[in-house]
């Protein structure tokens, strides 16, 4: 899953905000507020296939009121099919129901996978190539019309039209039957021929061989086993979209038809989203959501410092205001010492990487030296992170809470926060690469980015490198990072679990086949035959074995090749007004659990 996305900062003030972190779980708002990072924090690995609605509304919930949500970021799109960022995913969870869903479990303080529109978490055939979901009875759209299995099938078909609806998750292209051939319901034969890399067996239209419906049943056929499909079915991609309402696919995001407890009232992209109660939603069919407040008012591209001050001031509307940005360092201290009840903290399923370009930095000793030279503490603090809260020293690439995760340290003794210039210099000397040029980018218009760059330059110099930062701006940074020909040999970015196993990590960012593709999904240019072979073997394992195998692969890849430096796990610290109740941390996204939130009496 991708980190929160911002629109281009409309004003310099908006650009003051910190780099987006996607974040993680735990930390109750009422009572047991966690003051420190939860070491083995959850990431939503648990499942409960028999959960039944309705979800209990807490006794201190006042019915009604409007919840205000503010953020400096702005979701690029709210089309269910294209929703692939942590923030838009959490927002759409209020509006569109999927086949399965993540529900906050107070007992384990973690997210648990439960059925949503489906009656269970799906039935998989013996060969692992067919999944069947059955829809519940009594599901309705906001206009009162019934939800049909065909509509879910249509939503799935829609997700193959990545030319019309780009930026969404793409696992279906890899795992579903004909995923590489079917191009979605929209393209005509003539348009198909115009697509890049056209092959004669490509097809489009309503007739897709990978999805079948029979009454209330949806059957999905796969090309190769996809043991984590039940997790993937919680993405808004697997909602229901009636084909008759989707006459103009690119503008469907203006008003996606609601199946959840709230529906769109007003949406101004990049600025504001207003939600109101959907009276057609039946709580008895939904084990995870409550409908306590009357409406939601999301305000995007806001001034974070100002909003946080208002929330901590806790007067009037601010009492029912929530921010899903990581608290600024200056406000975090104030909140944690003076108003700990207004702070929601926790872990997140994200890891920040320094992706090392394997084509340009070919000597492994140089890559190891980098991990000793990187000034972890200085760089984190200078970039405005609170160590132990919004940044946690990282060791294994998979973040804590991931199923099958193997804890290891590589290079030996590197606990994820140790800077040792002497070791770095020794390694560089051994490799004959003293003064090796390191090119990484930073944003000149974000003060935190500039000070972070200064700290890194100092650290790398001390470690015997010759740092050559490449200047960029907020508007151009993303483009630079995903440009295969950019003059960089380090790319600084992160990755978040789509579901808590290594299966949503390595095939997505370290698959040799991705090298050179547009958008640069494999930012390390990591292409090794034995690594690709191992990955393909793990993909063919059964779910019970594959999770552990990914954990081992993590250690093997890093010790054998070291294509990245782990520059820390992400964490979250979000602020909310004193009357906001039920705000937990969705540890699968690092967002507030909107679906359980209410206004206190």
């Amino acid at each position: 899953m991708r980190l929160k996305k911002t629109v281009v900062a409309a004003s310099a003030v908006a650009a003051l905000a910190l780099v987006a972190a996607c974040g993680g779980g735990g930390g109750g708002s009422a009572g047991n507020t966690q003051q420190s990072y939860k070491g083995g924090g959850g990431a939503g690995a648990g499942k409960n296939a028999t959960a039944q609605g309705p979800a209990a509304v807490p006794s201190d919930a006042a019915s009604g009121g409007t919840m205000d949500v503010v953020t400096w970021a702005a979701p690029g799109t709210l089309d269910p099919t294209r929703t692939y960022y942590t923030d838009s995913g959490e927002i759409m969870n209020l509006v569109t129901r999927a086949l399965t869903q993540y529900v906050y479990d107070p007992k384990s303080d973690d997210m648990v996978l439960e059925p949503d529109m489906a009656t269970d978490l799906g039935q998989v055939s013996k060969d692992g190539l067919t999944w069947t979901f059955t829809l519940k009875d009594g599901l309705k759209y906001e206009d009162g019309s019934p939800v049909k299995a065909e509509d879910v099938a249509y939503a799935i078909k829609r997700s193959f039209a990545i030319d019309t609806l780009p930026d969404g998750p793409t696992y279906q292209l890899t795992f579903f039957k004909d995923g590489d051939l079917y191009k979605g319901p929209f393209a005509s034969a003539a348009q198909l021929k115009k697509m890049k890399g056209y092959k004669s067996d490509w097809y489009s239209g309503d007739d897709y061989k990978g999805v079948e419906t029979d009454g209330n049943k949806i059957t999905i056929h796969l090309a190769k086993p996809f043991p984590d499909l039940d997790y993937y079915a919680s993405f808004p991609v697997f909602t229901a979209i009636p084909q008759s309402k989707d006459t103009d696919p690119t503008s469907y995001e203006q008003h996606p038809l609601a199946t959840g407890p709230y529906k769109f009232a007003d949406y101004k992209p990049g600025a504001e989203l207003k939600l109101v109660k959907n009276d057609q939603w039946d709580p008895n069919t939904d084990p995870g959501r409550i409908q306590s407040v009357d409406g939601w008012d999301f305000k995007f591209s806001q001034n974070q410092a100002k909003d946080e001050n208002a929330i901590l001031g806790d007067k009037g509307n601010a009492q029912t205001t929530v921010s899903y940005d990581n608290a600024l360092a200056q406000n975090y201290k104030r909140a944690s010492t003076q108003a700990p009840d207004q702070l929601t903290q926790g872990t997140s399923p994200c890891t920040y990487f320094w992706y090392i370009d394997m084509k340009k930095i070919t000597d492994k000793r140089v890559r190891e030296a980098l991990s000793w030279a990187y000034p972890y503490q200085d760089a984190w603090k200078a970039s405005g992170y609170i160590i132990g809260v919004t940044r946690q020293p990282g060791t294994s690439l998979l973040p804590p809470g991931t199923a099958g995760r193997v804890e290891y340290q590589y290079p030996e003794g590197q606990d994820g926060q140790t800077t040792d210039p002497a070791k770095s210099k020794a390694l560089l000397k051994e490799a004959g690469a003293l003064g090796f040029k390191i090119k990484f980018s930073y944003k000149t218009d974000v003060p935190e980015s500039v000070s972070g760059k200064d700290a890194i330059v100092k650290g790398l110099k001390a470690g015997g490198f010759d740092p050559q930062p490449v200047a960029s701006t907020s508007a151009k940074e993303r483009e630079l990072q995903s440009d295969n020909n950019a003059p960089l040999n380090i790319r600084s970015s992160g990755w978040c679990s789509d579901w808590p196993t290594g299966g949503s990590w390595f095939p997505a960012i370290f698959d040799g086949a991705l090298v050179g593709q547009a958008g640069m999904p494999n930012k390390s240019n990591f292409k090794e035959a034995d690594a690709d072979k191992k990955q393909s073997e793990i993909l063919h394992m059964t779910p019970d074995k594959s999770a552990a195998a990914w954990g081992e692969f993590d250690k093997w890849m890093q010790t054998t090749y070291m294509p990245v430096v782990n520059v820390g796990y992400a964490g979250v610290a979000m602020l909310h007004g004193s009357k906001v109740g039920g705000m937990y941390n969705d540890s699968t996204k690092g967002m507030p659990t909107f679906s359980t939130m209410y206004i206190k009496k």
Partner: protein
Amino acid sequence: MTVSDAMLEASTPDLTPGGAEPDKEIAGRSPMRIAFDRLKSDKIAIACTVIVLVFVVIAIFAPLLCDLFGVKLRDGGSKNLDQFNYPVIGPPDHPFTWKAPLGIQPNTGYDLLAEWLYGARTSLEVASITTVVATVLGVTIGLLAGFSRGWLDRVITFITDFFLSLPFIMVALAVSPMIVQRYAQNQTKLDRAQFISLILILSCFGWMTLARLIRGEVISLREREFIQAARVIGAPTRRILFKELLPNLVAPIVVAVSLGLPAYITAEAGLAYLGIGLTGRPSWGQTINKAVDWFNSYPLYLYAPVVGILLLVVALNLLGDAIRDAVDPKTRR
């Protein structure tokens, strides 16, 4: 003697015919001399000059002053910070310490006094170079426009109006990312390019008022007898421009300079605050940009650069006013 000299002298009582006492020596005083004497007796002007001089000394000797206080520029890092990224010594949580007289910058752990001293240097460097460039541009263009009749005057007037109509902030916003893009890979060049482009942008938008003023003065002067006389005896245009006209324009130029300096200091800080100024070196505007969000918990962080700018700008402005009064022959004291 030029006309304005005569006017000035005529306004001094010493020249009243027959009124001079025999034993008092009559001394001729140049207009600049008179202005200087007036300035010397102006207490505010003296105080402001002292303040400005102190800042100039700070700017010139910033590295030495840092050594004197025992602080280093952009040194320290996370060891100066606690778990919340706040400083471990000095304000806001700890008492004053000479180790960091202006405190430590949160998040980065840099010493703020060093940042402030070097920030003064950046401010004055940018402001003084810009003032010189803008003044030279303004005077040259104004002289040319005023003295040439016909098409050249019209073209120059049009260009002046054109520049006046350009929105300054928009141009700065547009140029800044271009510079970053162009020099992305070389930090030293980028810093220099940002510095030069900042001066160019500021001076490109700073010469017009002076040029108009000079043009007006020249138009009124060029018809006077002494210019006519110079023409009659065949003085070349260059001589008329620089030897006859320019000395008469000293007063407006001095005033423009003294009022331009503080304007450029504010402009530099303003651009840095918007995130489009210099990024490679300390500047007051940048510090203010970062400090605004910390004001609630750490006011000194913001006060230091704000007081710096305030003092310097107010002093320069008052000094500018005093100079204007002093060189203006029409003011009487």
